[in-house]
């Protein structure tokens, strides 16, 4: 009876995952979709704890104190971390949680293998019979570990503790590490008695995960996180194979497939191929960077009152928000400026680059938080049309997404990425904290153009001062 109810629980959970994911891809139903999937997950977890029985021995699960202790700790820490995290840090949080899932899958593989190895040495099972199981264990271990190590590096890169790092021949070294890892895995499958290999594979897979993400530039982290996300899905599905557990299988494969497609969609939004992101990485030793770091001429600064004057008497002002806006938490100040200028009859719009900030959609989330209305947010193609009729473009802490080098400099690491063509507007005001290059680490020719003026300072402070100035005009 119990086991049949559990089957039903898993069935419900699988359906909620599919429907939830479907609802998540539509703005109107997204939130309910997320809650639905969470509800299904709850059913699956509670059902497993109380109803699961081992299909050989028929025993229920034990060690309840441990299980509930783990759930409680994980639940409390997870909720707090997710509630407390700042909007700007959400991308890294997703990466961190993804890594946790990967680590969980890898640990499952380790424990299961030890379990098998014990039975094997006791002679209760033959090496031949467990080969397919070992294959699944090894796959889960490799994928889970790569996902964990990679996610941790991606997390570190997004919060700035890990710097980009690459050296010549790194791609080849990576391939060698991967080949050795897979080779060791294959050997373990053929001869499961070589249990020491398990830890070798674990170590190699972790190293590979680190080296895999290390040379990829910070600007590409969203794509990498999405890819690792689908890896973890596959690792979870390996667990489903091991326990013949349908909900782990459906959930894992579903995420694996959807995650892979999402990764490709993200690449498309940047007009690049996945291969280009992973291998043609934003290296520090490319010719484009060297030539871009030279003198580019002079830039000019603009005073707050001049900037306020320009905007007050403009017909149309467009804002290009970027990571700087997110860091300074300036979205409310920005909305304030929109209202004040709106009262003066100035048309005020936002031009949103699909990958502005640290994640696709990052800016939409931020501005929505500040009650900016949806109609004022222009997608890249529409924005590029409107710049032509725009008097003032205010670039708020965005850099690489407005860098004309992406269009004209074939040697530039961001060459080929579609950008917001702000230079077709009459005037461009760029707010930045300093002249330091953006996340891709390259100079931006836009800042040295005659129609561009720089307005240095923290985005929030500058916007608040601008509001005050505009009011007094």
């Amino acid at each position, binding site marked *: 009876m119990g086991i049949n109810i559990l089957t039903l629980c898993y069935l419900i959970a699988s359906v909620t995952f599919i429907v939830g994911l479907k609802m*998540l891809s539509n703005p109107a139903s997204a939130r309910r979709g997320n809650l639905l999937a*969470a509800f299904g997950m709850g059913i699956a977890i509670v059902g497993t704890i109380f109803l699961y029985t081992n299909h050989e021995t028929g025993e229920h*699960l034990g060690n309840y104190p441990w*299980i509930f202790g783990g759930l409680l700790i994980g639940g409390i820490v997870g909720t707090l971390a997710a*509630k407390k995290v700042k909007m700007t840090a959400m991308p890294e949080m997703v990466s961190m949680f993804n890594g946790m899932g990967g680590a969980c899958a890898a640990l499952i593989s380790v424990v299961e293998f030890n379990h098998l190895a014990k039975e094997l040495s006791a002679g209760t099972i033959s090496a031949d019979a467990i080969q397919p199981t070992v294959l699944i264990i090894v796959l889960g271990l490799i994928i889970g570990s790569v996902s964990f190590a990679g996610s941790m590096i991606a997390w570190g890169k997004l919060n700035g503790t890990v710097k980009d790092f690459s050296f010549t021949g790194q791609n080849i070294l990576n391939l060698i590490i991967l080949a050795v890892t897979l080779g060791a895995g294959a050997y373990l499958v053929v001869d499961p008695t070589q249990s020491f290999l398990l830890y070798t594979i674990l170590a190699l897979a972790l190293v590979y995960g680190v080296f895999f993400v290390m040379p990829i530039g910070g600007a590409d982290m969203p794509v990498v996180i999405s890819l690792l996300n689908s890896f973890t899905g596959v690792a979870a599905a390996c667990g489903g*194979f091991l326990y013949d557990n349908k909900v782990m299988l459906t959930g894992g494969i*579903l995420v694996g497939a959807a995650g892979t497609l999402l990764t490709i969609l993200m690449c498309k939004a940047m007009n690049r191929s996945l291969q280009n992101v992973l291998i043609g990485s934003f290296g520090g030793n490319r010719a484009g960077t060297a030539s871009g770091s030279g003198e580019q001429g002079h830039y000019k600064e603009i005073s707050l009152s001049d900037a306020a004057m320009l905007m007050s008497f403009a017909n149309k002002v467009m804002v290009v928000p970027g990571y700087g806006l997110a860091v300074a938490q300036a979205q409310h100040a920005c909305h304030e400026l929109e209202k004040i200028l709106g009262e003066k009859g100035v048309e005020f719009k936002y031009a949103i680059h699909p990958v502005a900030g640290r994640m*696709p959609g990052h800016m939409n989330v931020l501005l929505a938080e500040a009650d900016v209305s949806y109609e004022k947010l222009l997608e890249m193609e529409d924005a590029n049309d409107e710049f032509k009729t725009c008097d003032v473009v205010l670039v708020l802490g965005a850099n690489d997404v407005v860098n004309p080098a992406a269009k004209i400099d074939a040697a530039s690491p961001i060459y080929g990425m579609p950008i917001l063509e702000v230079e077709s507007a009459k005037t461009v005001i760029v707010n930045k904290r300093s002249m330091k290059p953006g996340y891709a680490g390259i100079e931006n020719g836009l800042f040295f153009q005659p129609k561009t003026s720089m307005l240095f300072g923290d985005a929030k402070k500058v916007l608040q001062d601008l509001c005050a100035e505009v009011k007094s005009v």
Partner: protein
Amino acid sequence: MENILNWITSNQQIIYIVILMIFVGIEVIGRVPSVLHTPLMSGANAIHGVVVIGAIIIMGQAETDNYLALILGFLAVVLGTLNVVGGFVVTDRMLEMFKKKK
């Protein structure tokens, strides 16, 4: 070789599920607007936290004197739960902001 074939036969149900799920996964998010890329990724991230079920099973089946399995299993439950709970809460927070503009 024969092992593998036998294994495929005895697990054909699972293999069918895998193949169908791959298509479902691709179909389900095929038309997502770029605004929702991040929340969708985050939501998918929470869903693969289903791996915690494997961790719970390990934990529940570990012999009480097998400390290695207990400790690793416990760690796996904690990490898996972090993935699930954190993932859903973060996604909800992101989507909360989308809702306001209505």
